[in-house]
């Protein structure tokens, strides 16, 4: 007799679908979440809470990561790696340690992968230095689950046909688009002139209420990075875990940090060992375990979970756990709509805060351009307004172009000018972060967290091809910004990973030697353990991951139901 049928570690996008579907099917589910259980009554538009203090993420003095970054080459031409704790750098790789995980704080830009993303290697051929691998499943396998997410999590939008549109089993989204900002019209006009296909970005945001708990968007103007106070954002907590708990079959244990999974002589996991908020150790036994801690922490937990059949960590007998970590490559930039150059009526419309731009381009999802080189995988460009956080923006302005501190009236004039003279339109490029031997997760040999457990060391090397693709797309984005009439267009592409977009590290495949998970996201040699966050992805595609993580987690839920 076990404590539960299913024990899920983590509560974000990879966990919610499993908890909901299994609990609704009558199975007993326990969710172990390291962070607190906030509800929509706890989320406010408070920049200090959201973005400047450790409220939704651990204090880095207590729990940190060690980052290994490029540090030039040695005399023999080999890369050297610098090493710095995130407690020293302040570069935080936590993304939301609360019930619902980082899905609470997403912007909800929801794009599906496309069929070619499932077989990048066969479609575009090998790239030297990149560990490309085709997925063992196809887009058709995942399509029903993408559709399921549209309805259950709630995806709003309107389908625009375009050359790289992925096949859909339904004609359009179940929810109409959210309200749009005037910048969307400027973008549409520019795209029309440039003969580009302006896309309405699907959003995991409800435009109108579907229940008392999930009301429509309130258009506060503060979405990404902030927890939602209306329930409109389709976080795992709001859209899935609340449903799971309502069944009476799902228990969420917040502030419960799992230190290891305990396995028996057959290789199966028998219990999750966790420490509660008082520091007391507990164990939960279950028939099935699902690990969904986000890619870095999932790899860390598996590596920490040694056992008789798993001497190097759970599922790590072929040293694949933590390998081929990917982020999202690309870059971002801005163009300014300068008020004094524009019609005053338009300026008033530009100053409206709340509605979304909701526009993107996928005209270069595949690049067919001789100037770039052979046919290659491209990506997605999203267009949005500058993030409205004021304090962070002001603090950035304290440095001048020569990295000297600015203060006094000079600082005040700079603040006044930057905040009041223009509206900044932002673009973000999403392209594949090629998996390489230089991007992985391992256990750090010396740094430990406050419980005395080794922390994750993350090496963040990137492939030069990522930069080339990012620069190509960034150039296209800047052309669009120019056609929109924006000025002071600037942007950058570099190899710094966006730490909120993690995947890989436990890739799935048919060969146990080169993959951690089987095609059903089950650990090859631990048949009662599944990984359902983004870790399974051998390649990440050229869109934000969340919709795909949700979809695959619904698929995993079906697989578990069949296995139980």
């Amino acid at each position, binding site marked *: 007799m076990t404590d539960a049928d299913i024990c899920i570690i983590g509560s974000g996008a990879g966990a919610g679908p499993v908890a909901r579907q299994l609990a609704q099917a009558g199975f007993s589910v326990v969710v172990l979440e390291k962070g607190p259980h906030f509800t929509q009554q*706890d989320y406010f*538009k408070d920049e200090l809470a959201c973005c*400047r*203090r*450790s409220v939704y993420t651990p204090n880095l003095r207590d729990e940190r990561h060690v980052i290994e970054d490029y540090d030039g080459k040695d005399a023999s031409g080999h890369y050297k790696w610098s090493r710095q704790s995130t407690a020293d750098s302040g570069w935080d790789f936590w993304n939301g340690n609360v019930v619902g995980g980082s899905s609470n704080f997403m912007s909800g*830009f929801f794009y599906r992968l496309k069929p070619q993303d499932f077989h990048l290697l066969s479609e575009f051929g090998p790239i030297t230095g990149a560990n490309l691998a085709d997925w063992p499943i196809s887009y058709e396998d995942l399509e029903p689950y993408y559709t399921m997410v549209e309805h259950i999590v709630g995806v709003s939008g309107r389908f625009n046909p375009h050359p790289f549109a992925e096949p859909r089993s339904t004609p359009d989204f179940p929810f109409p688009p959210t309200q749009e900002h005037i910048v969307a019209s400027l973008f549409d006009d520019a795209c029309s002139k440039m003969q580009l296909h302006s896309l309405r970005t699907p959003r995991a945001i409800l435009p109108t209420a579907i229940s008392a708990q999930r009301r429509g968007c309130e258009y506060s103007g503060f979405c*990404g990075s902030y927890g939602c106070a209306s329930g409109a954002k389709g976080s795992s907590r709001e859209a899935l875990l609340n449903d799971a708990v309502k069944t009476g079959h799902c228990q969420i244990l917040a502030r419960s940090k799992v230190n290891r999974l305990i396995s028996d002589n057959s290789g199966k996991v028998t219990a999750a060992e966790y420490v509660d908020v008082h520091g007391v150790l507990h164990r939960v036994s279950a028939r099935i375990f699902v690990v969904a801690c986000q890619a870095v922490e999932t790899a860390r937990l598996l590596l920490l979970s040694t056992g008789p059949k798993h001497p190097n960590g759970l599922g790590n007998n072929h040293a694949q756990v933590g390998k081929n970590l990917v982020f999202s490559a690309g870059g971002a930039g801005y163009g300014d709509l300068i008020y004094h150059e524009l019609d005053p009526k338009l300026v008033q419309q530009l100053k409206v805060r709340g509605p979304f731009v909701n526009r993107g381009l996928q005209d270069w999802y595949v690049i067919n351009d001789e100037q770039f080189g052979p046919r290659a995988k491209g990506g997605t460009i999203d267009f949005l307004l500058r993030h409205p956080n004021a304090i962070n923006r002001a603090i950035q302005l304290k440095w001048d172009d020569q990295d000297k501190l600015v203060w006094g009236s000079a600082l005040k004039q700079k603040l006044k000018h930057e905040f009041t003279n223009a509206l900044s339109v932002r673009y973000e490029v999403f392209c594949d972060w090629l998996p390489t031997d230089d991007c992985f997760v391992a256990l750090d040999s010396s740094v430990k967290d406050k419980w005395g457990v080794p922390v994750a060391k993350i090496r963040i090397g990137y492939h030069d091809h990522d930069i080339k693709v990012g620069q190509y797309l960034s150039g296209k984005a800047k052309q669009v910004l120019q056609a929109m009439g924006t000025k002071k267009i600037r942007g950058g592409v570099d190899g710094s990973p966006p730490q909120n977009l993690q995947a890989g590290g436990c890739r799935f495949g048919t060969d146990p030697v080169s993959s951690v998970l089987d095609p059903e996201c089950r650990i090859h040699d631990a048949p009662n353990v599944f990984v359902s966050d983004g870790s399974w992805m051998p390649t990440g595609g050229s869109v934000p991951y969340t919709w795909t993580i949700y979809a695959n987690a619904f698929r995993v839920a079906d697989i578990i139901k069949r296995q139980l």
Partner: protein
Amino acid sequence: MHKLLKQWDDSLSPTQHAHLDTNLARRHFIFNNLKAAAALSLAPAWLGLNGCHADERANEQARLSQIEPWYTIATAQQQLFPDDGDGPDARSINATSYLKFVLDAPDMDPEDRRFILDGVDWLNRLAIARYTGVFASCEQAQQVSLLQEIAKSQAGERWLSFLVTYIMEALLSDPVYGGNPDGIGWKWLQHIPGFPRPPANKRYFDLL
């Protein structure tokens, strides 16, 4: 560089030097970091805050401005964010009491707290060496000159950077935290806050 500033630089711990290096690198790190409009967490996450009610902060601002080390800090803050006829100044946003509120937080990094408070002593020692009086007793032009001089040292620039960071917080954080009274900073910069705003019983440290 004055020998006092050299000594101040030499007094930095290895961790503080690591922060310096990172801060320099991060100034160029604003584009690719955190796509999808996630947190632009350019602030050191190890900084914490705890505090008292907002209405107490204005009174606290006036009180602190009379006693050390806050008198020196308030004077420096006023140079960093002056009353120049355009927008609020450090005094009107309660910058000093806000800073005390930050430094008194239980999760404030003790080393950073010590560094900020010790900076007052370094600044006054330099003022005495240059002008035979403490910083706050110097003339306006002398104060400006002293701040410009310490900014040329690593430690001095770090100290000023801390002060400016917390002035920006006092200017633009929700008034529930005691700075930005009546949204004076928001109005000046035409910033529209989001909603719902944090109530007094749900400030961020109430959630920890």
